[in-house]
């Protein structure tokens, strides 16, 4: 068996209507269509279901005591805002998806369907609206993100060493060393006190110098919302001001070998008096 004639594909272009009615009339007509109304209704319902997710997300993040710093507050606010602003677009997408399953009819059976759907090649209005909507959304997310990044960077004082703090409040320098599979914290200004639990006073800026003695680790103070890699051969910096008393988690967030899972410790946020007492007990000097 063979094909004698080369298979060709027939042109089946529907003709464009030439004398279209006015735009407002077309919009009214479009909005009066049953499926349009049902999709809009479905979008609103789905949107209303998605928006509460913003609180659910924050709920899970707060289970272990977060937020314990202004940085973490900003992170959670960003999550919240992103969920809410993405909701309309998600809702429309999912509404069309679900509606299309049966809404315009469906075909079952073994043979290719004979009944064809409308030959919509493109729709300038839809394309422009979609691109505009996604661009505005992306633009908003970018601007929000850039502002937030600047904000948390200034909270972290990530580029200002301890002795150059602008507001006169002296930050506590802490040298963080990661090695397989422990964290070591050294307080150079407190007489080089060394500890494997991070003990810090509340409401005082902390400034971390982070390095590693072997492989890449990642210094993650979970409830305070800071994270930075501990790289061998390089010093990285971050900072935070804890504003909640309590004990929080420090975990290694970069696979570092055999006992990566156990490379975790605690950060205790205590009052200034308790911190001074602890430093004395460890044999260090009192904070200046």
């Amino acid at each position, binding site marked *: 068996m063979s094909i004698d004639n080369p298979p060709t594909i027939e042109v089946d272009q529907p003709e464009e209507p030439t004398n279209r009615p006015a735009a407002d009339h077309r919009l009214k007509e479009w909005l009066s269509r049953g499926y349009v109304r049902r999709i809009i209704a479905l979008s609103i319902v789905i949107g209303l279901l998605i928006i509460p997710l913003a609180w659910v997300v924050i709920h899970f993040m707060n289970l272990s005591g977060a937020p314990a710093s202004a940085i973490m507050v900003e992170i959670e606010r960003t999550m919240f805002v992103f969920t809410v602003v993405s909701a309309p677009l998600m809702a429309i997408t999912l509404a069309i998806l679900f509606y299309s399953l049966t809404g315009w009819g469906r075909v079952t059976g073994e043979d290719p369907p004979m009944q064809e759907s409308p030959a919509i090649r493109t729709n300038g209005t839809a394309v422009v609206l979609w691109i505009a909507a996604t661009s505005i959304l992306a633009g908003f997310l970018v601007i929000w993100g850039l502002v937030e990044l600047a904000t948390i960077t200034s909270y972290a004082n990530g580029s200002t060493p301890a002795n150059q703090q602008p507001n006169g409040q002296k930050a506590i320098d802490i040298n963080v060393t990661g090695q397989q599979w422990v964290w070591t914290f050294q307080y150079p200004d407190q007489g080089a006190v060394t500890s494997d639990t991070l003990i810090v006073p509340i409401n005082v800026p902390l400034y971390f110098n982070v390095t590693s003695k072997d492989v890449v680790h990642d210094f993650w103070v979970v409830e305070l919302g800071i994270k930075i890699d501990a790289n061998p*051969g390089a010093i990285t910096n971050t900072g935070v001001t804890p504003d909640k008393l309590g004990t929080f988690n420090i975990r290694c967030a970069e696979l570092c070998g055999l006992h990566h899972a156990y490379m975790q410790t605690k950060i205790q946020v205590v009052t200034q008096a308790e911190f001074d007492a602890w430093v004395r007990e460890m044999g260090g000097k009192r904070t200046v």
Partner: protein
Amino acid sequence: MTDTAVVHQTHDVPQPKQHGKPGGILRHTSIVTGTALGLVAAIVTYAIGSHFFVPWGTTNADASQVGLNALVAATYFAWVIFFMIGIGAFAGPIRWALGHDLTHDDAEYMAGKDQGKWRYWKYTTDHKVVGTQYLIMAMFLLGLGGLLAMLIRTELGITWAEVFDPNFYNSLIGTHGIVMIIALIIVVTGPFGNFILPIMIGARDMAFPRLNALSFWLLFAAIPPLASNLFLGGIRDGWTVYQPLASQAPIGMIGYQVTIIVFAFSTGVASVNLITTSVTMRARGMTWNRVPIFVIGVIASSVMGLVWFPMFQYSQMLALSDKVIATSFYNPIMGGSVWLYENLFWLLGHPEVYVVVIPGTAALMELMVVFLRKPLFSYKVAIAGFAGVVGISSIVWVHHMYMTGWAPSAGYPFMLSTELISIPFGFLVLVMLGTLWRGKPWTRLPMMCVYAVIWDKVVGGITGVYLSDVPVDQYMHGSMFVVAHFHYMLMGAGLFAAIGATAYWFPKMTGRMLDERLGSIGFWVAFFGFQLTFGSMFVAGLQGMPRRVLQFDNAFNISNWLSTVGAYTIGIGMLIFLYAVITSWRSGKPSGSNPWGGKTLEWQTETPVPLENFPVLPVVTSDPYGYGVPDPYDAVLEADKQPAGVA
């Protein structure tokens, strides 16, 4: 016909001198000779090498480790090179260099003419053979990776004990990762890019048939080094094998590096071949606005693979050199830098995600028009979307490195570029939604995959928006949230799209229909298991569970139990689907040449597809999306009447 593009006039073409029987030495080579020669060479290399380079009983630990690494690397490369020699891969280049060009009979022999099933075990150049080989290989790798995933979830589900040794667990996650990455890179472009694409554009074969065979057999040769790592200490460092942790690793790591180096060559030649084929071999009349969208998707994916894969390859070559000749690219004590590795790695690492997602998406666009009987919505927007993703994907890699401390201010521009890529990616969603709009879906399995994949893309896309933001990433980086997100993109959007493509083109490749009932059951079981697994993994990530751990706080127990239940469900679903594929391949209902009523060229030729695809090369006069009837609402509007209701 007088107006066909190229009539196959072999008789008129003066042929070079035929040396011996057609095929020459390739008459005698096959996977058997390849494996035999490869194994012998590997054993000989190891024996000679261990005699000379690693004296037994060496006391200097460093020297013996470097020597042993070099020995293992040499053994692996001996296997790869001599396997390729043994299967006959070098016959072509050598004949070319000597001027003994292939005759038409040689070429036909190499394409597997009259060799029956045995041609699947030889260095066969026919693109249909290569496509089928790729399909089997992808299924094998997915099965292997899936099995490892089950073991990982078993460990994480049993929260009260360590099931595996931590080293073995770390090897599991690393091997699972890289096996799945390789599988997903090949799973659409391999089988369907090779089997379907040349027929789709009306060509007789790929542009470079021998490179086609080369790409598959290089991949085949790369698998044993990877698989053997589990017996040699394993890849304990995740699929990213960050340095310098990887230089501490046992010799199993060499297998990873050799595999990536060889696989990069395989991907490179496959990409060169696919792009050249699509650009230069289209049938007469198939202008760029008539090319099926799947072809555009494959080109986009190949361009990214071609341009960026060498970065990954060289990152591993330098890593290998650190291990075997003790250079210090990634050894900070001797002046190396971990950030160098991370940059080289992610320069491919990010485009690679789109290498996986784009061909799958394009395949779904190709098939959804057939099941909706509608033209593709806004073909040009789809092309713009692919082009935009390809373009921007090469300038977003630093978003994997926000938290590495490398150039903290780089967060600003790379957050910008990462958020921007959602715009062209949105184009692709628009095209799919616009095609769904007002269509009556024929709800067969391939079409249902479209729905599943759009859902997964929405979830994966929105969570990706969180992660692209530096402040949020400061919390999420390295957590289970990231794992859940990229599984939604790679598995939810990549693998499920590949399942749709498999169900769609299965009749063309095998001549039989895929069992609709069994296949659908398997697919939906896997789909809902997938939502459970990774939905609860999002929760674990939000709570602050780091990834790649085998023990964790009790706070994460519930979500991990749910994840494990979901993972087993995926496993069951995938086994059912695999069973459906195997039984349908052996004894499914014969399909005829065009069971779906498709208009692209691959459905116009007969099934099974003859050796050179078309008896006469086709001439194309329009794009393949001429489905549908005029919009009834246009008539209503024109008459300026109020519509009565839904059409």
